[in-house]
């Protein structure tokens, strides 16, 4: 019994990380029609920056803030200086492959090839007792962070002027532009926000997953599966699919370690067969 509860908790917390990643991926697709293949790199670089800040200051909040902001700026610059200059969507996607390799290899140079882990904040190091059962408190914290970010994004998209502008630009970029919305600026902001969220996931995840070279591509794969299942451009889809993939991946690893990735292949294949645009994607 305890195995199932514990693994579900692990799966849910992993799913929340995937949501942090996939939300940005999905939003920038909705707005710009590109899939940023360097999105996993934001996760990895964010985790490494967080690690360095944690080693220097010992302050976990500082690690989170510095990691998210620095990578957010990296995303802003990438979008502003390079992606924006290309008009062809496919060329934009191909450009991000280049950054996937560049950022991955630079991280290897700077932070080395040994797997590392960010120390947890002291308050959440130990387990917590709820009704006879023992839970790792940090996992609960991660789930909490994921829910808070999800609510924040929903509020941003549904209840603010900026969100209304984003929705308008997703629906019809030219019409939105002609009503005075600065679509180019909106794209840059959303792209930077997505990068910062991925980095947030990296720092938060770096304290219970190890950080290692190649993780950028591992999490990219899972984030892609999340948006394929959830539907590109849909936050709700990203949330539901992230939890689903997080749980499936975790149980897959625990139950069939050698065939782990097939537990996410199956749902992806089924979704593609029945609904190629994903659960909540628009046709």
């Amino acid at each position, binding site marked *: 019994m305890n195995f199932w509860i514990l693994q579900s908790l692990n799966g849910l917390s992993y799913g929340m990380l995937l949501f942090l990643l996939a939300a940005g991926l999905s939003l920038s697709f909705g707005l710009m029609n590109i899939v940023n293949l360097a999105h996993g790199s934001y996760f990895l670089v964010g985790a490494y920056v967080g690690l360095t800040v944690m080693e220097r200051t010992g302050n976990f909040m500082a690690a989170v803030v510095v990691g998210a902001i620095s990578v957010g700026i990296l995303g802003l610059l990438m979008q502003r200086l390079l992606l924006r200059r290309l008009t062809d969507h496919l*060329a934009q996607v191909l450009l991000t492959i280049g950054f996937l*390799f*560049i950022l991955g290899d630079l991280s290897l*140079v700077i932070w080395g090839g040994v797997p590392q882990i960010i120390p947890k904040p002291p308050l959440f190091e130990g387990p917590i007792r709820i009704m006879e059962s023992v839970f790792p408190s940090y996992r609960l914290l991660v789930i909490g962070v994921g829910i808070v970010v999800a609510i924040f994004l929903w509020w941003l998209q549904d209840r603010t002027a900026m969100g209304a502008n984003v929705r308008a630009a997703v629906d019809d970029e030219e019409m939105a532009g002609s009503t005075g919305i600065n679509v180019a600026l909106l794209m840059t902001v959303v792209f930077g926000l997505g990068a910062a969220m991925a980095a947030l996931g990296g720092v938060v995840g770096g304290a219970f997953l190890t950080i290692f070279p190649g993780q950028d591509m591992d999490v990219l*794969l899972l984030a892609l599966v999340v948006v394929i299942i959830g539907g590109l451009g849909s936050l709700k889809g990203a949330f539901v699919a992230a939890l689903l993939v997080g749980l499936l991946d975790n149980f897959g690893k625990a139950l069939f370690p*050698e065939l782990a990735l097939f537990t996410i292949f199956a749902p*992806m294949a089924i979704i593609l067969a029945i609904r*190629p645009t994903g659960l909540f994607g628009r046709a």
Partner: protein
Amino acid sequence: MRRSFLPIILVIAGLAILAILPKVLTSYYVGLLVTVLIFGIFALSLDLLLGHCGLPSLGHAASFGTAAYVAGFLSLKIANNAPVNFAAALFAGGAVAAIFGLLALRTRGIYFLMITLALSQVLWGLAFKWKSATGGDDGMPGIPRPNLSMLGLDLTPVNSYYYFTLALFVLVCILMYILIRSPFGHSLRGIRESESRMLALGYNVWAHQYVAFIIAGLFAALAGILYVYYNNMVSPKDLHLITSAKVLLMVILGGTGTFLGPILGATLIVLLENIVSGFTERWLLILGIIYVLVIMLAPKGLLGPLRGRLRRWIPM
């Protein structure tokens, strides 16, 4: 009439040079040429999708790597029976394309790219984790080259393997040439330009693309088989996104939808990787920088500007 002789003379001259090269080069450079030819086949197969169908696959290593694994596994663990292993590996590579094609061709454009990437990475994960069958991260070393003793042909020396690869390379070029000039090839390009029009004209768009996807998978599988026997080993990186992205860069660098482009791209990237690896471990960084430079500066490839002139010689 005079004009049409020129390409024939050039092809014959090119073939003659390729045939003589092993006599003047050391075995190290002959090996490098083998790699160039193999990636030439691989890049040509991807260009059938990217250039002629407009389908940007970022998972083309799936067929390449699967065939390599099947050929390697059979040769190492069952029997070094080249014809059977060749056929089985080709079949496996084609089967992967047949399954992935069913799923990926339900989508277009960036979706297609994303799904081919995700599907091929799942295979990579399988090769990486399924240690008992694939050897995990270490892969399978010590795979012997085929020995076709009944034909009196031992492919173990690098020179004989070079001629074997060259023969298959020429065969692939001929088949590809026939294919892209055939009515089928013209229909593919018609579909690339306007799916809805071809549909209205009564073409079965899906079937055309599906068949092209499988053919591309088979050619990639052939490249994978040649690759595994040449290197005597197979590892998960042969299925990895990096391999898919590398071959995609070869096609884009040379120019999509051209015959020479992918071969030129493959030659440049293989040579560059070889030179760069000689003095630094930062090949991936260089590869990334080339990606950015090519996309920003020469999105139509090196042959792009010459395309109008080349069109006289080479069928598009």
